[in-house]
């Protein structure tokens, strides 16, 4: 499966336009840590799209790209909680965002993508916001649903506690 994905990624790169080929491949963590150094650079970043897809009237779609441990090891599938997320804001032309699977949230992992674009660090045109302006996008892994099983032991325990409270409340006359 991994080999197949690598082949798909490699094929994607071949099909990409020129600027994307020249882009430096960096992790989201590197973008966050070296934000000033990468200002204005063309970069390629891999990560999961999470949160919302904000389709704005000005022709851009805004969302968040996470590049942390949870992308490949979601907590819902047994991954360990290892701290906060690492994410950056991204925007792309609306036409580039058409057909994307829903973004990652509870019980769903968003599409994992390779996003290539210009890192805008405290962009003066956006009053100091920092974000990746995406020019091309490859879906590495489609989004998918994550299962959730109800814990009946917890539910029954809770119901018993509430019954107990109600029992005590109604058993003796109130003050």
């Amino acid at each position, binding site marked *: 499966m991994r080999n197949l994905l690598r082949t798909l990624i490699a094929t994607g790169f071949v099909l990409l336009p020129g600027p994307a080929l020249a882009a430096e491949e960096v992790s989201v963590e590197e973008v966050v840590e070296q934000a000033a150094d990468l200002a204005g650079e063309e970069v390629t970043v891999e990560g999961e799209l999470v949160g919302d897809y904000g389709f704005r009237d000005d022709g851009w779609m805004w969302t968040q790209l996470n590049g942390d441990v949870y992308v490949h090891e979601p907590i819902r599938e047994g991954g360990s909680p*290892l701290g906060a*997320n690492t994410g950056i*804001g991204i925007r792309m032309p609306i036409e580039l965002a058409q057909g994307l699977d829903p973004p990652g949230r509870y019980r769903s992992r968003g599409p994992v993508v390779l996003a290539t674009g210009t890192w805008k660090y405290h962009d003066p045109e956006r009053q100091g916001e920092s974000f990746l302006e995406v020019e091309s996008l490859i879906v590495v892994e489609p989004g998918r649903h994550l299962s959730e099983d109800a814990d009946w032991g917890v*539910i029954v325990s809770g119901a018993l506690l509430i019954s107990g*409270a109600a029992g005590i409340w109604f058993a003796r006359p109130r003050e």
Partner: protein
Amino acid sequence: MLIRPVGDDFRVIAFYMGRIFLVIAGAGILPLAWAAVAREWNPFGSFLLMTGLFALLGVIGVRLAPRESKLNWSHGMVVVALTWLIVPVIGAIPLLLSGHFGRPLDAFFDAVSGLTTTGLSLLGDVDHLASSLNFWRHMLQFLGGQGIILAALSIFAGTGGITLYFGEARDERILPSVTSTARFIWAVSVVHLVFGVTALGLVGWLVLGFDIDRAAFHGLMIFFAGFDTGGFSPQSTSVGYYHSAIFESFTSVLMVAGAMSFGLHYALWRGPRRAVFANLETRTILSTFGLTMALTLLGLAATDVFVSAAGLTRQGFFQILSAHTGTGFSTVPSIELAGWGGLAFGGMAIAMALGGMGSSTAGGVKSLRIGLTIKTVVNQIRQVLLPEHAVVGTAYHQSGRKHLTPNLIQSVMTISLLYVALYLLGAGMGLAYGIPLQSALFESVSASANVGLSIGVTDPSMPIPLELVYMLQMWAGRLEFVAVFSLLGFVYAWARGK
């Protein structure tokens, strides 16, 4: 001689805590219903467990009522201090069962942080957290900001209310009775909730292009955390997630409203509005905000991080407003905040330490104390400079003409010094673990003043003793010490009294 508490003392405390737990159990129905509607069955079970435990403890406490359930000052303070410890213990159950925390203490940390409206978090992967759990985290901030005791007082009128009210670090009774004051505070909050959620939701839907249900969700979460100066957010990138000046503007209005004393809200609603600006507290907070804003902007301008004045102003204004109001929202990552040295760091740290207004949802030393301290110092200097028999005026304006009395000065100085000591305690602990001074001080002030801005020290890998100290700081800082010392005194009397 220390008098050892007897059975009736414990029963009175249990009775009042029981009442408060019943109110929290009632509040727990909201996230429970949310989880059911969203079909989030794992959180649903954990909310059922939490609500059941609150209800059971509440009923047992109420059943323990003594014949004479009169609450004295000591009882009231113990009730407040214990409630603010036990509610997060039980409130942490859904967080712990979510699987988003590595150790139980971390879930408790987040619950303490939520309830005290601090906003520091050890939660892993908030971006995939269940919506009902996000609702509960933010609702904890709402309950904590309003005051969980206040919530109970709004429902249960009765003797002892005044003790509980003051125990929760409120020093201003707006209306004649505590119950009517509590209800007024809730009325103010509900009005802000309706307008705040509507405004943020509409911006999310019409400007940011979110789906309408998600826009409403974000609006509600940011309202809870903004108006109650809590600082949690449903996405890991905080308010920076929205990439919108208009969204930040509405959020800023909520932060300011949250940091205003409810007495000021009352004056703005019903009183002569001009008088508001004559208040020492209003003048102090406007001055300190202007000063810390200038410091931060100058510091940032010197670093060349922002190449445009608009960028510098928008980003600088938002971070400093968030710090001064004790909210803890940010639009830049913590790693970047960590790099703000010199004046920018100084401006942010001072703003956090000073905090908002008294009797508000904000933390920190509070503006009125700062104003009174400055006035006292100025008076002392004038006393020295003027002829020996000259009389230095002690009047100040705060909802009417008042006078600085020795008792008031002593109280103000004591609490202010205790805050400084609390800031140094966490900083010293951080230093002991090898954290650089600047980072240790920033994080310690953030925890003690219930702000929640972090430069990366608060992390699941942090040492447990440091985590415990931060929790102590959040708890003591929120309650402004009196209830905490009363609890310690009560325990000491129980152990050593006769």
